[in-house]
Structures are given as structure tokens and as C-alpha cells.
């Protein structure tokens, strides 16, 4: 019984982590068709912002939930202004430029902080479940991820900004004729995406090694999740995470982690082959 609960926890946890690391990318890709290769580094910067703010005496929760997203939003704003804005509509060029940005950010962080930074540990203690015990912080993480996803959905569908954003995403020319400043919408979207990535990094900081290269472990996985999710902004990647996460978690548990990881990629390939525009084409009827 307790092993079943733990297994369920592991599955839900892997879905939540996949969702958490993909959300920022999903917002940027879904709205702007920009593949942000520096996504992993935004996560890394979020982690660094948290750790450093915390060492400077800022309360951990404040560092995680406020300082990190704001800092990364700032970096995102600069990157958008200097790089991404000039390359809109050129998918591959943007991808390469953000790849350059990712190397640049890694280099910059290493040059400033070196390759070793003292981390912060997970707060909240642990919860015993039968013979097992799990970190309470991980439960918090699942909760806050759900909250983030739900609030993004609500923001997109119930607020004026969400409406404008969806309009700009559907048809930028028409939105422009309606008096919407698409450049501004894109800028805000990129910044919001960056802030979410930063928040993800901050939330991950207590349970992962905060190092200049930590982003590399996340980017491919986030990328695959978002693309196989398809056109529908939030629901798409969420459903992809819900399919891919459990497969990886369960196969890692019952077979080997390599099998789990390979199956995640293989499954993404199969999803894209069967549903060429991603999972969400099932209910949006293609794009």
C-alpha cells in the first residue's frame, strides 16, 4: 500500500517537474513561435538569484518567489530587446542566437561566481509514509506547479491581457489592425516566459545543484515536452507532460533509468508522427 502511494507520488512528481521546467518555454514558444535555447540558462539564473539573495540575508521564500523571477524577467527583457526582437519570424536564426546567449550566460556566470556556489537546502522537512518518507518541499513544489499552470490558464482566458495575447498569437496582422501593439505583446510575453523560467529555477534551487551548467539537464526535455504538446498553449504541453512524465518515471522505476529516458524521447517521436502538430491537435483539430 505505502509503496503504491510512493509510486503515485513519484509519477505525479515527475509530471509536475516536467511541467515546471517547460512552462516558461511553452509560453514563449506557444505565443511567439520562438524556440528559446537559453531557456535552461534562465532556469540557472533563477537558481543563482535565489541562492545569492539568500546568502545576502534575504528570506528564502522571498528570494525564490520574488527576487528570482524579477531578476530573470530583467535579463529576459534585455535579451528580448537586444536579440529576439530583431529576429522575429526567423525560427532557426532565433534558435541559434539564443544558443549563443545560453553559452554567453554560462560563461558570464562562471566568470563572475566561479564554478562553485554554496547552495541552499530544502525547507519544510519530510513526511513519513509507511516505510518510506518524502520531502515536504517536493509536495509544495507539486502544489505550486499546479497553481502556476492554473493561473496561467486563467490569465490567458479570463484577463484582458490574455485576450490580447491570444489575438496577437492567432493573427498578428489582424490584431495590429485592431490597434494592438504586437511588438509590445511579444516583449511582455517573452518577459513573462523568462520570469516563469526564473521562478522554476528558483523553486528547483533547493533540490538541485546550482551550477553554471545546470540548464543543460533541462533544456532538451523541456523542448521535447513543449513541441510534442503542440499548438494549444497551456493544455498542449500539460497533456504532453502528463503522458511523457509517467512513462519515464514508471520505466525508470521498473526497468532502468536509461530505458525511461529513451522511452520519453521515443514516445515524443511517436506522438509527433501520429499527431504531426502535437497532442493538442486532438482537440483543436490541427492548427
Amino acid at each position, binding site marked *: 500500500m505505502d509503496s503504491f502511494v510512493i509510486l503515485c507520488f513519484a509519477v505525479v512528481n515527475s509530471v509536475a517537474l516536467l511541467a515546471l521546467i517547460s512552462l516558461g518555454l511553452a509560453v514563449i514558444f506557444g505565443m511567439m513561435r520562438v524556440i528559446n535555447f537559453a531557456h535552461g540558462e534562465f532556469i540557472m539564473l533563477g537558481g543563482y538569484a535565489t541562492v545569492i539573495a539568500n546568502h545576502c540575508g534575504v528570506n528564502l521564500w522571498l528570494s525564490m518567489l520574488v527576487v528570482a523571477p524579477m531578476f530573470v524577467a530583467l535579463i529576459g527583457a534585455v535579451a528580448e530587446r537586444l536579440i529576439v526582437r530583431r529576429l522575429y519570424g526567423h525560427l532557426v536564426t532565433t534558435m541559434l542566437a539564443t544558443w549563443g546567449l545560453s553559452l554567453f550566460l554560462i560563461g558570464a556566470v562562471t566568470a563572475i561566481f566561479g564554478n*562553485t*556556489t554554496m547552495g541552499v537546502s530544502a525547507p519544510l522537512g519530510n513526511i513519513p509514509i509507511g516505510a518510506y518518507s518524502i520531502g515536504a518541499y517536493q509536495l509544495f513544489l507539486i502544489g505550486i506547479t499546479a497553481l502556476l499552470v492554473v493561473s496561467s490558464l486563467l490569465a490567458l482566458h479570463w484577463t484582458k491581457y490574455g485576450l490580447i495575447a491570444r489575438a496577437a498569437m492567432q493573427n498578428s496582422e489582424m490584431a495590429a489592425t485592431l490597434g494592438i501593439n504586437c511588438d509590445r505583446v511579444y516583449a511582455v510575453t517573452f518577459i513573462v516566459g523568462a520570469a516563469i523560467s526564473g521562478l522554476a529555477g528558483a523553486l528547483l534551487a533547493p533540490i538541485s545543484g546550482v551550477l553554471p551548467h545546470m540548464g543543460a539537464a533541462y533544456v532538451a526535455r523541456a523542448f521535447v515536452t513543449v513541441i510534442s504538446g503542440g499548438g494549444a498553449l497551456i493544455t498542449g504541453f500539460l497533456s504532453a507532460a502528463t503522458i511523457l512524465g509517467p512513462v519515464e518515471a514508471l520505466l525508470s522505476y521498473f526497468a532502468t*533509468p*536509461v530505458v525511461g529516458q529513451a522511452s520519453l524521447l521515443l514516445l515524443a517521436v511517436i506522438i509527433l508522427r501520429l499527431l504531426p502538430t502535437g497532442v493538442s491537435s486532438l482537440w483543436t483539430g490541427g492548427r
Partner: protein
Amino acid sequence: MKLSRRSFLGTSAALSAASIAGSFAGGAWAASDTVAIASLHDLSGALDIYGVPSNLCMKVAVEEINAAGGLLGKKVELKVYDGQSDINKYPQYAQKAALNDRVVMVQGALSGAAREATRPVLRKYKIPFIYGSFYEGGLCEKNTFCVNTGGNQQVVPLLEWSFKNLGKKLYYIASDYNAPRNFGIWNHVMAKREGGQVLADDYYPLDVTDFTAAIAKIQAAKPDVVHSCLVGGPAMSFYRQWAAAGMLKKIPIISIVFAAGNEHEVLAPEETDGVIVAYNYFQELDTPKNKEFLAKVEAVAGKNHPYINGEVFGGYSGVMLWAEAVKRAGSFEREAVLAALESSIRWEGPAGVMTTDGPTHNTTQDVHIIKVENRVWSLIEKKEQIPPDTYGGKCNVFTNPNQTDFLMPQI
């Protein structure tokens, strides 16, 4: 293009290249008043955490030698290459060091993959390769000399101690690549020898960051001790998630790689306190020789120098052992230096006495079992003068001078 068969063929050309290389080398240091050695490390990229301090240790050694008047009357010059955590760079730079810089010795290429990519190149150009990282053991090649610990020198003392003091049921969790798999075999060797039990061998890809399922698996198996051979930044997540699940106080962790990537600094004390490792060297070692050494490190890299652990210490001991060999040989020539290294060079350094072992081309040395508390390591037990494993006599460059393949431990 009209190339005659003769000039097109490598056998003759390689010979001439070798003789040229030889004459280059000879010419290069015979005429000038400096002699060059190469440092091949990842100074950027994901693996710089190992490369940067190891390179620093080489620098410290070179400065020490030069401050004492150099070697055979010549200043030693350190040619530094940044492998950029890209294995493709290693053969390139090894070649450059051999052909352009005409170095007399190459050290570095710490990761197994880098070492394997570099070794054949240096063998081809006949430049001695000093390997400074601890490793799985079983490398018994004429052109290579391993100055750090091999598999048996770390795993055997650590597991002897842990089976005796922590319990017989061991759970092995490791990164999925060559060295951890080889260390995994040593676990079984030791379990058989000591009557212990290896409950599981779990290998995780290097970029896994979510260890929830892994931890659940360990909890279900209820081991007495967890042996972790998880390597790299992403794997640090394991220790955090392990501590967050409250396991750190319940099941002790032993390791032979923990701290090599400064895990004990990146992670918080409440996530690492009590982890036990085995290395030939650790920075807190309380000996006069070590105090001297650390003073020199500070002189080179300032007070906030990176932590010097057992992995990167090889950068220092490698150069020093090589220098001793050069002194004994009275020459920088490959044959002479290798012969000297094979003649049991004894050197007393910060980590105690180290003696090169002729037949195995590995090094006999002390190993310290240490424990971390609040980011500081303290000695539990010292195992003196552990010789390298002979792999049943197969690890012997005198009887197998053409041996280049790895030897595997037999259970």
C-alpha cells in the same frame, strides 16, 4: 597528384615522423633553457569544476620546481590548453602539444573519455602521459603513468571499513558510464571477500535530476549503507532530494567520488553531514607538508582558491613525481624518464609517501577515510601504503609492454 607509393605509405612516413618528433623534442630542450610540459584540462564547460583546480595544482608544482632552480638547469614552462569539456578537443590539443610545443610530458585529460581519447595520440607521438585523476584502475600501459588511486586503492579500504562499521547490506547508485560500472564490479569483489551483500546496482544517465523514484527504490530495499558513485552537476540533486526525504540521518552514504566536484560546498551542510569518502588527499589533512603545500596554493591563487580535493591533487603529485624521475634519469628523454619512474620513485608530499610502482605503472600511496561535517572533512582512519592491484599479474608493462587495453577486475 603523383605521390609515390613509398611517400604515401605510413609505415615509412610514421617512422620518419617519429624520428622527426624525437629530434624535435631533443632539439627543443637541448638548445633552449626551458623545457615545456602541457596541461590538458577542461577550464570551461561543465567539467571545469575538476579541470580548473587540477590545472592550478600543476601550476603550483611548476612554480615550486622553478623556484628551486628548475630541472636539470632548465626552467619548466607550462603550456595550458582548455579542453572546453569537449572531448574532441583532447586529441587535437595533445597533438598540438606534441608537434608544435614539443613538450616532454603531458598531464590532465581527467575524465575517462578524455583520457581514452588522449592516450593513443600521446602513444603515437611518444610523449609520456601522466594521469592525475583517481580512476577505476587497470590501466597498465607503457606510455602512461597513473599517480592517483586506482579502483582497488579507494574501493577496497572504503568497503572494508564500511562493511565492518556500517553494515553488510550495500546499495549501489551510480552515474551510467564506464568508471562507475567498473567501480561497481569492485563492490561485488569486496562483497564476496568480506561477506557483504550488494542489494542493487542502479545506473542513472548523467543528466537525470529527478531522483524521487530512485530514492523510493532505495527505501524499499532497506540497505545498511548507500554507496553513491553519482558524478556531475545534475546528480547533486540526488543528495538534496535524499536529505529532503529525511534519509540522510537514516542510511549513511559512502562514496569515492563525492567532493571531487565540490559537492560538499555546493550542497548545504544539512544535506551532506556524515557522508564518508576515501581519498589519497584532502585539504584539511593535518601535516606540515600539507601546510607548506597550501601556502603555495594560496600564493598562486589567493586565499579564496578552489578546494583542493583528492581528484585534483594529482595535478601536483603528478608533476612532482615526474620531476623526481627526471632528476633520477638526468634527462628529459621519454625512455629515460619512464625507466626512472619504473624504478620506484619515492616522494614524500602533502598526502604522505607515494612510491611509483614499476610493473603496473601505477602508484603506491596512503588512503584516508574521511567524513564531512559542516563542509569540513575530518579523518576517520588512515590506510597506509596501499599498492595498486596487479590484476592477477596481468597488469605488468614489463611482461606486456604492448598492453594498451583496460583490465577489468574479476569477481
